[in-house]
């Protein structure tokens, strides 16, 4: 494959919350590392009871520090990590400069954010815990997942008609 083609793949997708800046193609077994990180993540979600509808209710009722502690310390860890990566110019294992695309402000972060918050308090789950809930045996949450996919699809279908 020519180098120029590789570069055209680098167009940053502004819709994507989880942009992929990798220029190295992951295939086969090297993809498994992402599943492993996901497994650790899922275990933490269950063990710290983040998948619990009750914990989310406690959070929105300001009756427990637990979820604020989890999210807050995750952010602090993330800030320190990214500052270290930037200041020490740490490269990816493939030798690439680490790229964090800029998020562009849109009205969607206000309107869509609020709508997501409504759903978060009903389901007791953001998208990550939905997957962990299904895996941990609350199989009926598959229906929540399908509804979430429907919500995503409907947004995509009528994207131009929503203020942004």
């Amino acid at each position: 494959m020519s180098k120029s083609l590789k570069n055209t793949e680098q167009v940053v997708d502004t819709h994507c919350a989880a942009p992929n800046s990798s220029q190295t193609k992951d295939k086969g077994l090297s993809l498994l590392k992402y599943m492993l990180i996901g497994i650790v993540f899922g275990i933490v979600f269950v063990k710290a009871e983040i998948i619990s509808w009750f914990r989310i209710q406690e959070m929105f009722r300001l009756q427990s520090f637990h979820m604020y502690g989890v999210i807050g310390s995750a952010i602090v860890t993330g800030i320190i990590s990214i500052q270290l990566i930037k200041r020490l110019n740490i490269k990816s294992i493939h030798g690439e400069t680490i790229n964090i695309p800029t998020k562009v402000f849109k009205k969607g972060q206000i309107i869509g954010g609020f709508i997501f918050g409504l759903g978060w308090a009903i389901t007791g789950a953001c998208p990550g815990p939905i997957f962990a809930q299904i895996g941990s045996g609350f199989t009926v949450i598959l229906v929540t997942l399908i509804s979430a996919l429907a919500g995503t699809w409907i947004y995509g279908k009528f994207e131009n008609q929503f203020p942004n």
Partner: protein
Amino acid sequence: MTQFIEWISQPWPWYVAGPLIGLTVPALLILGNKSFGISSSLRHICAACVPAGIPLFTYNWKKEIWNLLFVLGTAIGGFIAMNFLANPDTIVISESTQSDLRALGITNFSDLMPAEIFSWNTLFSGKGVVFFLIGGFLVGFGTRYAEGCTSGHAIMGISSLQWPSLIATIFFMLGGFFMTHILLEPLMKSVEF
């Protein structure tokens, strides 16, 4: 070893769980130059299954298979934690939350999820419509409209000091407070709680 299993079976405190979740950010960046975000997986599934010529779902989703493997791993992790590392004791929920929820008609506090809502028996009832259909729809619609969820905005976005993500996170919380304190009670009453 038995001691270790016993220790790991206890619920993990926030100061263990939070940093572990935060470490997902540098892990994904260093291992694959990838930004952390989970609601994107919903978009990739739409793109893979029902793109229907919609611009939002027309892209090379195969390049993002890593994200789908990540959420598959999250489900497997949930399975492992529940089956091999499960906490033998019942969940401890704050007293005030219990009494608030009792007033709404919730009586069973023995599991991670209230059994009177989250079971197949409630699926074809008003409760199922509210908690699975409406709830799930709002999560999927809202996260795509906001271009991210708790992971992509609150954790990845704020960690990289991006103010649009801080705004998104503030509105996630406002939406949650509004639902919990204003809408939840009438909603639950309407489905015979």
